[in-house]
């Protein structure tokens, strides 16, 4: 994120957008499905990369589903954050590569920690690769999908919605947490609403009027949320904000009313 901050001409030391993702994600239950929605360029990939770094540090396994980016980009990020990809792949991190076969016919063999899916239309292959990737690790596993929106270019909306529902249900009952990044505003509103209704929670990201970036935990099934837009600064959240949103488990049924 520091790099992007520099490109935007902002002041301050380049940092990795610390404290953006984790305070939010730490409040999620270990088994759930979440949509990370925001317009292109708002920082969804950085959000996921920050979360990836922290999870790897904590020894929590991650399955990363590459749809818009190739595994190479992921490996470059790992190197930038001081990790040797060869030591991470297949150990803390498994990659499902739906990207490479879509752009190239070369070098598309499975390799250590990377499962290649033949095409982005091959939703069954994608789903099976996620399950296989998760089976390599101890539960709970974090599954990141970057991005679900691109799959709409390769699949019909009904069949992708079914895939989305089946994979979400599978992950949250058998594997752990799945986090889908979604490009806000590129799919029809009805479709967008359907995706939001099929997950347990939604994290929204947006640009404010001065092109600053903000993030909010919009809702989370079974939890009471006090949604609040939290400005993201390169040096983290604004002073005084220990947690970006308030989440509390229903103390009793009546409290929901």
């Amino acid at each position: 994120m520091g790099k992007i901050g520099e490109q935007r001409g902002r002041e301050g030391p380049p940092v990795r957008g610390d404290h953006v993702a984790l305070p939010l994600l730490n409040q999620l239950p270990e088994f759930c499905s979440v949509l990370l929605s925001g317009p292109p360029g708002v920082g969804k990939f950085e959000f996921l990369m920050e979360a990836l770094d922290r999870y790897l540090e904590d020894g929590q396994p991650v399955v990363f589903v590459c749809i818009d980016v190739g595994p190479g980009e992921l490996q470059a990020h790992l190197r930038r954050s001081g990790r040797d990809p060869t030591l991470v792949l297949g150990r803390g991190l498994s990659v499902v590569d739906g990207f490479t076969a879509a752009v190239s016919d070369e070098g598309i063999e499975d390799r250590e920690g990377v499962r290649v899916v033949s095409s982005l239309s091959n939703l069954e292959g994608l789903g099976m690769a996620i399950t296989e990737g998760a089976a390599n690790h101890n539960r709970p596993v974090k599954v990141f999908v970057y991005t679900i929106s691109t799959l709409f270019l390769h699949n019909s909306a009904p069949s992708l919605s079914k895939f989305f529902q089946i994979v979400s249900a599978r992950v949250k009952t058998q594997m752990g947490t799945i986090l889908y990044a979604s490009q806000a505003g590129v799919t029809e509103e009805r479709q967008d609403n359907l995706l939001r209704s099929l997950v347990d929670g939604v994290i929204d990201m947006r640009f404010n009027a001065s092109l600053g970036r903000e993030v909010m935990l919009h809702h989370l099934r079974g939890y009471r949320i006090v949604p609040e837009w939290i400005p993201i600064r390169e040096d983290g959240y604004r002073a005084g904000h220990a947690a970006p949103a308030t989440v509390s488990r229903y103390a009793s049924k009546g409290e929901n009313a």
Partner: protein
Amino acid sequence: MKAAIGLEALDRGLDGGLQRPSSFLLSSEVMAEKRSFAEQFIATGLRAGETCLYLDLYGSPRLARHKFARFGDLPLEHLVVASLGPSSDGSFDEALSKSVPGTAEILERVEALLVDRQPTRVILDSLDLLAEELPKPAFDAFLRDFTDLLKTSGAVAGLLFVESSYGNGGTPEVLERSEYRFEFRSALREGALIHKLRLSPSGQNRLATRWIPFVFREGRGLVLHFPRVLVAGPSGSGVSTVVRKLSQSPSRAERRQGPAAFDYGHAEGAGWEAELVGTPGKKRFAFLLPVLMRGTQGLLLVIDSTRPGKLDDTIALREMVGKKVPTVVVANKADLEGAMTMVQIREGLDLEDEIPIAEASASKGHGLQEALEQLIDVMIWGWAAA
């Protein structure tokens, strides 16, 4: 000659394999591991010197071809992998298309391949893409024409299909009429990925199997895998010896003297593997039984043929495991003087007629593999196999 699938326990029940010509459906309600089965069918054909055609609707023949390397050495020159979907560049084996073609075009291309290459085995992977792109009547019509075309060619064709891709689920009528139907399920259970398949009645075929777990073994291919086969019997019946003799790599939880808990072994046969768990005969370990019995798929019930007095214990044990669990009785020490006859054992255990009794001598290793093979058949085909 029939077209063997390459899973011998299944092929045996099908009198050698699938009839020619015919079509078989590989279906699942939602995503499941069907492709390995399709690849196994092709790999078996290649090993037999047949020409095989793998039709890929997802447009990555190179990846599809690469997957066959997992089966060990195969004569890949007899394998034709053709893309029917959009391709990303011109380097595909059969650069058939640059965009998703219409059904008429697909049929024309398939017909040309059938005439040109004359394959005896064909896989269409996967129908989901067409099912979601085409209106139902057009999809049904395509399937009718496609299966007719393949039958005319004399080939055996497998079609991969996810039911949730078809309208509101379910299976098109033409697929219901496939000569064979294999259903698949995949799920994570306690951190392990479990795949299962079963043969269901379809078309003229009335044969059916139980759900059978399977795994993929690098270099070998698909293997039926039974993660828990219980070997149980009263104290002194020879359970530990049976497990040891059947196992490739037996191990035993031991204390300084005598058995500590239970025996474990890994047994293999043609196209199958089984993990054997020998239950303790000693009463002080009885608390372990419910744990060991959890998820049992089959039971080798071991008796000492020379000790009729122990049969009541055996009956109690069987009732504990459950009478519905596929069972074969191993009449151990059948070679010794004073051993009960099969009739006496059946009466003494109050056994149903369909439950097989296998005469054996665990110490000499006689009759044990046959008994386990018989149990494998019952675990696959149900009591009808007995």
